[in-house]
């Protein structure tokens, strides 16, 4: 079964077309990560999947139905998005923040029900936030705050979740914490996950499937081992790298190479460092 499908999708902003007819199908119950160089359109594609960006042409289907045939509330009951930079509200407890995830399921007379409260409790427990549930979100650490956003999205109880760079600004242990949580949600509830990540080795470790985007096209698509090859890395990122097996998990690990001594790149780097030494 296909959870999300892009059909001949044409996407762009004013005077700049990022994708001109891209096709992509996301299988239900999978963890898919979109990777690519800065500006390749990863977030743009994710926004289109979540109706945050209207396509110039083509369409997105969610569980077989075109997005534009669904109301924004209908979509919100089937698909959740964690945007890249959510705004943290003032004077709001963690529990109240997570309760906002219940909005698409609520009616005018019931901005609160015992069922909603129970679902919020479960989301807090799943993200390890039960202890800090009554604290103001503005007092949380970066890792806790990111888990609170994930808890909000969990409380939305959608079969599909989109995450736009959920690990940005987090240190390595907190990145692992969030990605393990994502993997567990997928394993326990069969939730379809599509995310954008920058760290290739972490993407490989936590994804079933990687999609490399480059110049408005899908450059490579498949399992982490199929996708993360030196050729793909050279084309997509301009990166010379070796790919080895992670000694812990066996997933591919990207090891960037140092440019050879005579190459232009390395001489530029040396010039700059000499200048820095002189200036310093």
């Amino acid at each position, binding site marked *: 079964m296909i959870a999300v499908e892009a059909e001949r999708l044409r996407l762009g902003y004013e005077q700049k077309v990022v994708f001109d007819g891209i096709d992509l199908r996301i299988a239900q119950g999978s963890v898919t990560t979109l990777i690519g160089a800065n500006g390749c359109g990863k977030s743009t594609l994710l926004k289109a999947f979540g109706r945050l960006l209207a396509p110039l042409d083509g369409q997105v289907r969610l569980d077989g139905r075109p997005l534009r045939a669904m109301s924004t509330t209908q979509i919100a*009951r089937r698909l959740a998005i964690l945007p890249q930079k*959510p*705004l943290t*509200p003032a*004077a709001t407890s963690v529990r109240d923040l997570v309760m906002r995830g219940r909005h698409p399921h609520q009616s*005018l007379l019931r901005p*609160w029900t015992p069922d909603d409260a129970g679902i919020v409790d479960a989301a807090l427990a799943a993200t390890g936030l039960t202890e800090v549930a009554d604290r103001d979100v503005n007092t949380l650490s970066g890792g806790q705050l990111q888990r609170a956003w994930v808890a909000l999205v969990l409380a939305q109880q959608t079969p599909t979740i989109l995450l736009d760079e959920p690990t940005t600004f987090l240190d390595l242990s907190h990145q692992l914490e969030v990605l393990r949580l994502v993997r567990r949600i997928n394993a326990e509830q069969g939730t379809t996950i599509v995310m954008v990540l920058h760290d290739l080795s972490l993407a490989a470790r936590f994804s079933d499937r990687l999609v490399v985007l480059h110049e408005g096209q899908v450059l490579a698509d498949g399992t982490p081992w199929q996708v993360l090859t030196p050729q793909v890395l050279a084309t997509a990122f301009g990166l010379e790298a070796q790919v080895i097996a992670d000694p812990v998990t066996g997933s591919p690990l990207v090891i960037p190479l140092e440019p050879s001594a005579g190459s232009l790149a390395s001489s530029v780097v040396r010039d700059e460092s000499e200048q820095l030494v002189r200036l310093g």
Partner: protein
Amino acid sequence: MSGVELKARRDGIMLGPVGLPWRPRVLAATAVVAVVAALVFAGGIAAGSSGLSLPDVLAALAGVADSATSFIVTELRLPRAAAGAAVGACLGLAGALTQTFSRNPLATPDILGVTSGAAAGAVAAIVLGGGGYSVGASLLGFGIPVVAAVGGLVAAGLAYGLAWRGGVDSYRIILIGIGLTASLGGLTSYLLVRAQLTQASAASQWLVGSLSGISWASVWPMLAVLGCAVPVLITQAAGLTLGQLGDEFSVSLGLAVQRHRLIVIGVAVLLTAAAVSAAGPVGFIAFVAPQLAQRLAGTARPPLVASALTGAVVVLAADVLARSLLPGEIPVGIITAVIGAPYLIWLLIRRKDVR
């Protein structure tokens, strides 16, 4: 009984078909402000040149006082107190809506162009009307409140239209509103410079904001707008809360952001136009009242009911001061500016999260 008990939790309560989160601090803050508003309302009626006691006032309101007291209370002072409360409630509520949708505690409905549009309209009617120009005379024929309300609504509509780019961004409409306010302020100044002395004086009086000589005829439009705003805002309250997470997250959670924003801006503009056309641009209420209410209630955004009540308290209290500080009456707008301006400076100095 036990059914209700079973459905109550520490964080909410279910009463039949209605489920509500339990917010003790918001309830307490709202109750306190409501009581203070009632006291200032009654006290405002009692205060004045022919001194009345609170029991006199209550007796007159209940219709059991002697005829002289009754006349002073119901014919002279009650309309003024009602007008003060309504102006404060309209501006407090409009300010809460503006600060919430713009996610900016310094924003007031003024930045939507509505106040400067109303001012330009009113001053044009006073200055051109008194000068005997046919355009001005016909403007004045409609009455200053009507001209002010139309001017405010046209200016706000212009700001919204200019800010439209396949949707209205809350930051963009603020910038356009500020530009429009400056232009309309220039027009008002030009009219004042060209005016004769008596007209300029009358226009300046109006521009400060005053409750002097206000009658029931000015109160009803405000109460009507407030009455219409309440049911509309009940449908938008959840959206106002979601909006604090940003536009993208709001859409993701199922909010039709553009429709919601149009409704909220529209209600804020109507409330402001009603208040300004009745009493002139009474300054700082829309800015101060929501901030005070938010601090009292400790909420993520200015609470709507408490902001309206706080606005009423501030205007009524300022009006008592306006009538009693000096021998002659001071326009209430001067008092609110004297209170409001230092508060604005204090807030700017204290602010840590400048975006």
